[in-house]
């Protein structure tokens, strides 16, 4: 179960993480792009709204500006009488519905040498045309002083006119000049007052989304219109910024009063919401209009879209999660069943049914493979059982064969305890399998002692049978009283006969005359034995030139003769001694054997054999014995010899 969760969780983690990354990237990209599109649209809309509003306002302002400008031109170019002036002012107020009041204010004594202040003023008083002379020293009032000092027409800051019932007004003033004694000098200022109620209405009617609005500030930053009426004519954008500690707002305000246009983030002073604001100046008087687009309201659609997307994605995630668990479950369920079956099989139960997987995918294939593996295993195990039984039988038979083989070699030492002229000792260490080494000794008659050592080619049962045959043949022939070479001839002939399996045996055959110490021997391709003289020299016996027995029927064997002195010994061996290998596959070799024999030559037979055996075992330590090791030693004592085994 834990493994199942492992796969499902791993799948879910990686797939969902991948999907989440892809989704986030797509979502973020789409959000940024759509946000930018909206922002661009808002900017365009805001700019359009602002510029259309500015144009509407400015067309009125421009129209108003024309009236006093024309009057100023008239005053500069034409001589005028008192009546003309009053008529002109009256006409201006009467014929221009936007104009609330107008005056022509003269410089001190400019109208008449006797009159210091002369400023006849027509104005609308509750719809009725009224007239007065401006009663105060107007020369240092803004509406008079600013155009005078600037030598240019100018709009005043907005102001509340108490006489007109607390309406907000602004005055446009135009200086006019007259040439006296060739010098152009300021003669006075023509003004037109307009009520700004329409401005408040026009800008007040701007509604953007739910809470967006427009506002107007004067050249000094004073609020001319704003939905929050407590700001109007009371605060400037800069006092609000100071109150809020908002340096950014102050900077925007500075841009606005400088007559710049722009698109900025700006808080709604009405709701506190963050808005996008476009601001642009009124060309006529440098007042600045701002239109605010509440960010959250304009982004509401995209936000709700995003919300929907997020919810859909979450639902998709859940669905994906369920699908992943379902798919991984459908994969791991048969896997789990297979794993259970495998565990069961591991305990040796091959009868367990393999779960039936119907899918044709890898898991189905796996189940099929698993099933055939089980069947193969079953088959193999049953085969193995049979094979093992057969092998055991063969092994036991081989063991018996081996036992028989060993039993036909003389094993009782000393074999002839009553004969003191010589002594003989033989030793054989068979290799694992049934080997082909043989040795034998027996008396032909009272004086002549036969001894033989040989090695059959190959191993196993055939070799041992061949060896048994050879041994029997040698003994049979030898006891017929033949010469040594004749024994060999005969044995060779018999072995070569019908030898289809082409087996052969190397054989050393010798006859010791126990009275004289004379040894007649014939060697059929066997390792030449060593003569260990009583004096300590070691000499290999001269070869007799015969090849292994069983190879060629017509082969003729010869013999040689040596005489052993008292104390001399013959050391016979098979190639299991000299061809024993060490770990580097180096042979024990005849040279080493001779070397090792030297210090042993005077020792007892048992010491000689165990000494050489010990050396061979040390030499080939760790390397399994490949061939039978057989040694035989015969020492001649003569008639006075003593058995020293």
């Amino acid at each position, binding site marked *: 179960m834990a493994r199942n969760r492992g796969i499902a969780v791993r799948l879910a983690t990686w797939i969902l993480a991948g999907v989440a990354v892809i989704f986030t990237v797509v979502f973020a990209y789409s959000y940024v792009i759509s946000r930018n599109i909206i922002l661009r649209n808002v900017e365009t809309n805001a700019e359009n709204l602002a510029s259309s509003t500015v144009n509407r306002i400015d067309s009125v302002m421009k129209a108003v500006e024309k009236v006093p400008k024309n009057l100023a031109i008239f005053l500069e170019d034409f001589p005028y009488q008192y009546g003309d002036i009053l008529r002109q002012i009256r006409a201006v107020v009467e014929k221009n519905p936007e104009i609330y009041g107008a005056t022509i204010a003269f410089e001190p004594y400019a109208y008449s040498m006797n009159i210091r202040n002369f400023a006849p003023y027509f104005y609308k008083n509750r719809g009725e045309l009224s007239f007065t002379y401006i009663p105060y020293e107007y020369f240092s009032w803004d509406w008079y*002083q*600013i155009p005078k000092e600037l030598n240019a027409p100018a709009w005043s800051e907005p102001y509340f006119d108490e006489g007109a019932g607390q309406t907000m007004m602004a005055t446009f003033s135009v200086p006019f000049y007259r040439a006296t004694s060739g010098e152009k000098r300021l003669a006075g200022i023509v003004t037109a007052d307009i009520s700004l109620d329409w401005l408040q209405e026009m800008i007040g009617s701007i509604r953007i989304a739910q809470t967006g609005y427009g506002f107007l500030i004067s050249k000094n*930053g004073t609020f001319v219109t704003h939905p929050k009426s407590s700001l109007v*004519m*009371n605060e*400037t954008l*800069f006092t609000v910024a100071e*109150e809020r500690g908002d340096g950014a707002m102050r900077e925007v*305000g500075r841009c606005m009063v400088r007559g710049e246009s722009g698109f900025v983030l700006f808080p709604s002073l009405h709701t506190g919401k963050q808005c996008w604001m476009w601001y642009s100046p009124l060309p006529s008087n440098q007042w600045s209009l701002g239109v605010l687009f509440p960010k959250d309201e304009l982004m509401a659609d995209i936000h709700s879209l995003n919300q929907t997307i997020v919810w859909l994605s979450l639902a998709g995630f859940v669905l994906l999660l369920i699908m992943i668990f379902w798919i991984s479950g459908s994969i791991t369920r048969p896997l789990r069943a297979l794993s259970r079956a495998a565990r069961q099989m591991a305990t040796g139960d091959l009868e367990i049914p393999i779960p039936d997987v119907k899918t044709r995918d890898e898991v189905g294939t796996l189940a099929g493979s698993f099933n055939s593996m089980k069947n193969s295993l079953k088959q193999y195990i049953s085969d193995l059982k049979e094979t093992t039984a057969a092998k055991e039988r063969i092994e036991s038979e081989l063991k018996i064969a081996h036992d028989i083989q060993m039993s036909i070699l003389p094993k009782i030492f000393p074999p002839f305890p009553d004969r003191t002229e010589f002594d003989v000792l033989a030793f054989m260490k068979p290799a694992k399998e049934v080997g082909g080494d043989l040795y034998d000794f027996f008396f032909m008659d009272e004086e002549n002692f036969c001894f033989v050592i040989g090695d059959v080619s190959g191993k196993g049962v055939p070799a041992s049978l061949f060896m048994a045959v050879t041994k029997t043949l040698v003994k049979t022939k030898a006891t017929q009283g033949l010469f040594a070479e004749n024994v060999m001839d005969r044995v060779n002939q018999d072995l070569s006969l019908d030898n289809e399996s082409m087996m052969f045996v190397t054989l050393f055959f010798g006859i010791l005359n126990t009275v004289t110490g004379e040894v007649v021997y014939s060697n059929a391709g066997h390792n030449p034995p060593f003569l260990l003289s009583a004096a300590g020299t070691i000499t290999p016996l001269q070869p007799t030139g015969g090849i292994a027995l069983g190879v060629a029927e017509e082969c003729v064997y010869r013999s040689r003769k040596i005489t052993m002195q008292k104390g001399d010994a013959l050391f016979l061996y098979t190639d299991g001694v000299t061809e024993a290998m060490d770990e580097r596959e180096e042979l024990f070799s005849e040279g080493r054997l001779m070397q090792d024999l030297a210090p042993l030559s005077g020792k007892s037979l048992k010491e000689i054999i165990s000494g050489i055996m010990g050396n061979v075992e040390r030499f080939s330590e760790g390397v399994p014995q490949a061939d039978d090791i057989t040694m035989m030693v015969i020492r001649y004592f003569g008639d006075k010899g003593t058995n020293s085994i």
Partner: protein
Amino acid sequence: MSVRRLLLAALMAVLISPISGEAEELKNVVFIPQWVPQAQFAGYYFAQEKGIYRKHGLDVTILSGGPQSPSLDLLKEGKADFATLWLSTGVQARAQGLKFLNIAQVVRRSALMLVAKKSRGILTPWDMNGKKVGLWGEIFQIQPKAFFKRYDLDVKIVPQSFSVNLFLRDGVDVASAMWYNEYHTILSAGFDPEELTTFLFHEHGLNFPEEGIYVSEDRFNQDPEMCRAFVRASVEGWVAAFASPEEALDIVMRNLKREYIPATRVHQRWMLQRMADLILTGEPKGIETKLLARDYYRVATNLHSGGLIETIPEFASFYKDCTDDGAK
């Protein structure tokens, strides 16, 4: 009611009781500041609102000053017992034979200044040479004219109205301003202090103390103790107003609203902070209302040389020290 509140109430009762005991003995006095009830006079309104005058045995009525009701006129007509006047106005009145006494020089540092735009190339006094400078009426012209003389400047004087619009529109290069008022109006039209060059007259050796409290000699002789009480209470009012400026601003804003005077709180806050700078000149930082003879003579001689007064009144006849020191 918590134990603490009970204790507080008990303590208040003990403190208030002698005053409430003397309630019928409160002296009715009328006071008029020389301008509308803005933060320039926050201390007096605070003293009135918070019962500080009553604590000092006075029931004070504060009239609203301004262009329509100059404080000097009301003092002259006997419609007010106490009035604030600029020192120069006070000296001028005395020189004209009006028997008014200065009993406390509350504002000992001049707030009058000239402001110019760096963009118009005015960085030092000498840069004003040949430029158009807006100046208010005669009392406000003494310091600037002395300033021009000191720096040997030839400027074109343009009469300045109550607004700074002419300056903002570049109709003049230099404008007169009160540090606590018009200067902030200029800042509130979007100019940064770094864009402006300012010349505060008190930094140019032309420190003319401004508001002081005046009373007629007769009234003073009638009840000098009352005059001392008024001065003490007014000073206490100022100290209290500076200690809780937002509360003082609440009072100021309420009064301005009652008078239908458009006002913004940030402007009044600026004004109150500057008044603190101007008034808290004592050592250690506190209010010192003593008029110094050297300040007096600096103003008087300048008025005299400017032709605004013919004789310089005696300092001793002009000033009555109503501080605790002076009472001894």
